[in-house]
């Protein structure tokens, strides 16, 4: 009888001790498609192994628009989740409004500054303190190509300059294929434009135009040339692009209807799902003139300000799990991106991921590393929307001149400030 009492007391005690630092945290994210959900689940398991409880709050919708809407309504009602997936300048906006906490403790303990790329780390800080933890790095400037279609059209390699590209496009068209698969949604139009512009203008120009939104850069000859090239690309696409989803466009490349697509490296997931191997069944190559450049899109988990000590501990634990080496490898293999830690070996990754890391290193050295505007890494939501409006309208209006579009960029951006 006594032993039973003792046992029960002990069990209660240990439960109480366990409770002291363990807590339930709610995590808002939009990792809901196949590979992404697998990746998110991995994080959940690792967090629960530490005794915490992961309350899943997944909101479907690719670019996270719906997730952000939900997050705002929760924040207005005074009940935000403990952790939320937020990107780029939005982290600072939330931080400036006083919603975010501080996870410097985890950053100091694990020495984040030693292995995180400086630009990426800067986006996760609010007034010099870490408020969010970066999870991965996606590269936007990729051409996904179907080698069979290229060969059949008499094109021996993926074009390296825009002149080459348009020559190749003519050949591909004559052979009866669509040269460039595309989905006509504003963010996809902006993705393609961004890639064209960074190739033509280079890293410094890109930053001036799409990070600082400098009116001079926006109306420069380089910008006008980029716009013209971009408009010319419309002719290499089919007529039915309006409203098409990106993965439908990817499936046109997979199915051999189209030769190439310009899209970020999440497209790899579609090829993998179709049972294709990079380098053999499909190719991933940097678009013309962007070999030494890298337009990045980073997912981050922002930590909201919570009072409960257990929850604070859970946030710190979550942050250090996210940046642990083995998690970085497993998560990014499932997601199609590359680890955000520079000291993780990519031996187990596929050819495209390895190429992505190489491009990243080169871009860091040559100042070719730029935040993607199309994916919400460069400017605020409202400015991004204003740029989208102009780009997509220019692309779809056959009569609009590049000069007009560049002037509209300036006025639209100013109006959105």
């Amino acid at each position: 009888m006594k032993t039973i009492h003792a046992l029960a007391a002990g069990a209660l005690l240990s439960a109480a001790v366990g409770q002291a630092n363990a807590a339930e945290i709610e995590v808002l994210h939009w990792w809901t498609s196949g590979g992404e959900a697998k990746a998110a689940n991995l994080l959940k398991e690792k967090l629960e192994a530490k005794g915490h409880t992961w309350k899943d709050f997944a909101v479907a919708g690719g670019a996270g628009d719906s997730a952000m809407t939900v997050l705002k309504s929760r924040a207005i009602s005074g009940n935000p989740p403990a952790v939320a997936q937020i990107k780029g300048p939005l982290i600072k906006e939330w931080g400036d409004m006083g919603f975010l906490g501080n996870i410097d403790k985890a950053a100091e303990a694990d020495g984040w500054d030693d292995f995180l790329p400086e630009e990426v780390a800067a986006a996760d800080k609010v007034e010099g303190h870490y408020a969010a933890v970066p999870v991965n790095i996606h590269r936007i400037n990729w051409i996904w190509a179907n080698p069979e279609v290229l060969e059949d059209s008499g094109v021996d390699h993926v074009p390296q300059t825009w002149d080459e590209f348009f020559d190749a496009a003519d050949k591909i068209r004559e052979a009866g294929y669509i040269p460039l698969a595309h989905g006509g949604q504003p963010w996809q139009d902006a993705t393609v434009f961004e890639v064209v512009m960074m190739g033509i203008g280079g890293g410094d120009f890109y930053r001036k135009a799409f990070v600082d939104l400098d009116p001079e850069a926006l109306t420069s000859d380089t910008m006008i040339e980029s716009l013209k090239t971009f408009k010319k690309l419309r002719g290499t696409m089919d007529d039915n692009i309006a409203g098409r989803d990106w993965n439908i466009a990817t499936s046109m490349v997979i199915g051999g209807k189209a030769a190439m697509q310009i899209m970020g490296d999440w497209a790899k997931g579609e090829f993998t799902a179709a049972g294709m191997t990079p380098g053999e069944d499909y190719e991933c190559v940097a678009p013309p003139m962007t070999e030494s450049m890298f337009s990045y899109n980073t997912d981050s988990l922002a930590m909201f300000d919570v009072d409960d000590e257990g929850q604070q501990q859970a946030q710190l634990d979550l942050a250090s799990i996210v940046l642990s080496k083995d998690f970085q490898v497993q998560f990014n293999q499932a997601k199609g991106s590359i680890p955000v830690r520079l000291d993780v070996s990519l031996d187990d990754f596929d050819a495209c991921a390895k190429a992505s890391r190489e491009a990243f290193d080169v871009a860091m050295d040559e100042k070719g590393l730029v935040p993607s505007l199309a994916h919400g890494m460069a400017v605020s939501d409202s400015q991004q929307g204003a740029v989208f409006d102009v780009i997509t309208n220019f692309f779809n209006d056959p009569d609009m001149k590049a000069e007009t579009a560049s002037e509209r960029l300036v006025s639209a951006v100013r109006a959105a400030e």
Partner: protein
Amino acid sequence: MPSNVPAPATVERRHRRSLAGHIERVLPRLVVAPSLGVALFFVYGYMLWTFLLSLTNSRMLPQYDFVGFAQYARLFANERWHVAATNLVVFGGLFIVSCLVIGLLLAIFLDQRIRQEGALRTIYLYPMALSLIVTGVVWRWLLNPGLGIQAMVRGWGFEDFTFNWLVDSDMAIYTLVIAAVWQASGFVMALFLAGLRSIDDSLFQAAALDGASLPRIYTRIVLPSLRPVVFSAVMILAHIAIKSFDLVMALTGGGPGYATDLPATFMYAHTFTRGQIGLGSASAIMMLCGVLAILVPYLYSELRGQRHG
């Protein structure tokens, strides 16, 4: 027991009767009160809140530093808002007029005592039972040049046939009209049919005896007596047009570019995804003003007409 003291049971009965009377008087108000309260708060309260927000420079979340009518000035300087507002005029005008004309014609044809009228009526009315999202998706396929009507006619051998309105930024707004008219004209037909059936047959007979032709009977006698039906139809169609959101989302997604943007999609994009709550609220208030500008004069003239007539 003295006789002037009422028995306890009688007291209770009288008391109960007065309680019942009391409840009877209060009950209607009690029943109406919750829904009235809910409507006041959630409809008019939020309208007021939206108006307040439109006077602030709220961005991602509501804030309350008032900037006067600056958001309205920004709204009217906004290129995309002009596209959205113009689109609403084009779409709303064509939609209402086409629905009325097609609905009236269908109703007149059905009114000629044809066989299988019930079945035909169901066929015409059925599109109304579909969600606008479904209508949008189906018409997106039909109008897609590579899959739908254009591809089909070309398949028949007319190689030059072109019907690519969906991907043409000048014409895309008319695809919205097509889909919306397809959806709603059957419903308008049902309204008119009910109106036609309520007209006394003796009117027809009297007119026919006087030697009036059928078209003349319709234009001189039937149509004027359908005025109240037209009134309700315009009311319903106008509010469908102004709140159109799901159809645009499903059919064109606002594209190509933002060529088919309507005020509702403009408002949603700016308020909820672009972190410009102040500007979005201003656009919502402008939509409200648009509704009022159309409906108030119309309501006024119609209701006054009825009182006198």
